[in-house]
């Protein structure tokens, strides 16, 4: 008898504990998946910091779970499934290569909501969100063209995806505005994060005569090399203020926090709906870091004006006339690129040499 009573008491206690966990689970769980370590100094760190700001905003009303250094591909699918199984209500997948894994996992968990960064596929429970980085690239590209003395600027590409190609085109078009003789050299690394490779690529670009290098990868390694060489570069995804005033002369800063707060609020209110959003300098999702270093007055005035014009919508970085690389017409005089073409951009504009890898 005693035994049975103990058993009863034990199961009652167990029930309480279970009830307790169930109660804890009532707080929405928000998941974040990052492609690099959360202290990479760039892309992943900024997503993480934005997530922390969001957490601070909501306090105990939500719970945040994070997973860093998740490779794109099959492993991502495993991690996402794990997160969905552990009770996440909303999962932010913060790298382009998570697009298909996100869609696949979302299909299996219709009650879990997903937000995928920088992709283009959506579903009933998958939103896509991205920033118009090309607006920032217009400004850093103009600066690169203006600051180059060798008339050669370098661009470190990660993967040949539309976002990166847009960045190359926007950088080149505006570098050319500042300096009609400028050439752009592109190096593809096929990785988002590999400091040694990023450093080698920067060195290769310098060896080939470039004196300003724009990076589309996540670490601060290119800036470290540029500093040694006395060349210029830009903060990418984060301000990278530790390299002020040179080699970093400005930066493109991603600010995800307002968006994260808005979307988590929507989940709390029960008003979350799938959408595809693309915000730029005007909305505050793309920030331009302080201009530092020996930038001439007139250049400074020009980029400041350009930033305001892009923010207000008075100027679109892809305004015709622009030809494609092969010389065929893309945008006529005064014509502005539509979002559809930009989102799927898979061609260089006239003047960029080399071909895009498959």
């Amino acid at each position, binding site marked *: 008898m005693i035994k049975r009573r103990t058993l009863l008491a034990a199961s009652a206690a167990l029930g309480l504990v279970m009830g307790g966990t169930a109660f804890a689970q009532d707080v929405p769980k928000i998941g974040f998946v990052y492609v690099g*370590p959360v*202290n*990479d*100094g760039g892309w992943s760190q900024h997503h993480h910091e934005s997530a922390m700001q969001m957490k601070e905003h909501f306090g105990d009303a939500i719970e945040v779970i994070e997973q860093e*250094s998740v490779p794109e591909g099959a492993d991502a699918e495993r991690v996402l499934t794990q997160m969905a199984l552990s009770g996440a209500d909303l999962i932010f997948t913060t790298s382009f290569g998570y697009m298909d894994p996100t869609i696949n996992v979302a299909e299996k968990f219709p009650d879990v909501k997903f937000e995928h960064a920088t992709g283009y596929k959506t579903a009933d429970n998958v939103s896509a969100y991205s920033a118009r980085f090309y607006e920032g690239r217009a400004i850093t590209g103009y600066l690169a063209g203006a600051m180059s003395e060798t008339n050669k600027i*370098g661009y470190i590409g990660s993967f040949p995806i539309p976002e990166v190609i847009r960045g190359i085109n926007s950088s080149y078009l505006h570098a050319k505005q500042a300096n009609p003789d400028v050439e752009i*050299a*592109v*190096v*593809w690394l*096929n990785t988002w*994060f*590999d*400091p*040694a*490779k990023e*450093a*080698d*690529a920067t*060195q*290769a*670009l310098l*060896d*080939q005569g*470039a004196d300003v290098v724009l990076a589309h990868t996540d*670490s*601060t*390694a290119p800036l*470290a*090399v540029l*500093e*040694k060489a006395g060349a210029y570069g830009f903060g990418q995804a984060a301000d990278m203020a*530790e390299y002020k005033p040179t080699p970093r002369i400005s930066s493109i800063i991603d600010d995800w926090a307002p968006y994260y707060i808005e979307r988590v609020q929507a989940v709390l209110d029960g008003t979350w709906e799938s959408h595809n959003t693309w915000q730029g300098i005007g909305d505050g999702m793309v920030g331009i870091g302080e201009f530092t270093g020996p930038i001439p007055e007139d250049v400074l005035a020009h980029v400041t004006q350009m930033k305001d014009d892009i923010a207000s919508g008075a100027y679109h970085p892809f305004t015709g006339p622009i030809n494609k690389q092969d010389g065929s017409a893309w945008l006529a005089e005064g014509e502005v690129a539509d979002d559809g073409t930009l989102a799927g951009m898979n061609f260089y504009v006239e003047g960029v*040499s*080399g*071909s895009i*890898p498959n």
Partner: protein
Amino acid sequence: MDPVLLVASIMVSATPILLAAIGELVTEKSGVLNLGVEGMMITGAVMGFAIAVSTGSPLLGFLGAAVASAVLSLSFGLLTQYLLSNQVATGLGLTLVGLGLSALIGSNYEGQRAPNLPKLDIPVLSDIPVLGRMLFSHDFVVYLSLALVVAVWAFLKYTRAGLILRAVGEDHESAHALGYKVVRVRMAAIAFGGACAGLGGAYVSLVRVPQWTEGMTAGAGWIALAIVVFSSWRPLGVLVGAYLFGGVTVIQLNLQAAGTTVPVELLSMSPYLITILVLVVISARGAHGAPGSLGRPFHASS
């Protein structure tokens, strides 16, 4: 494309893997397979960076990196030589430990800058046109790595101690029967391998990149392991292998930057293709050159 800058870049790019590979060669020559090169390199990278930043001396950084990685490798030695754990599993464990440990130690050093390691312009030689800039105006670690290759080659080929080390690696039973201290020789070889891997790692964080970022060696340790096989356990082969791997990486990037139309994928793939080819040739010849007792556990009682 400027060949002077190209060769100089290749030398810088090849140095970390050359250091790690020459250390691993000695370890494997003694009959121990240590798959933890990546973990020891990244530990060297973080310790070298931390010490160089704290003391302001890159030299002390390199020294500290070598010591730290040697100590780490001795934990591998203790497990595999005295407690007879499986070398493959323990080596993989060492890599994981190194990656985690370095992330922990390094978290305070993110975003800091390393003191500059001055280039060592060798007098007279560095004034030679073209060759001087290409070969004789690097930092001391580049020369150290080359000197180590020659030293290891001479040690293994011409010294009595080198002969004993090779004997232990070829057949530990016979070496033991002859009265050589198999375990002690192996512990020394493991520590040497660790110290070299540490130097290689520190070269990445202090010279090549120069900064600390988590996971920054990004697989260089595995390439070093491949190079040892590629060389069929010969020091000069290690030199060729390391410069080939380093060279292809740098040439590939330079070709891209110069705007040539050679497919990038083909170039990135080429060192691995060559490794496979070399392995095929070696096995077709029948003599692979691997030490006879490589990876086998040894206990004096057996």
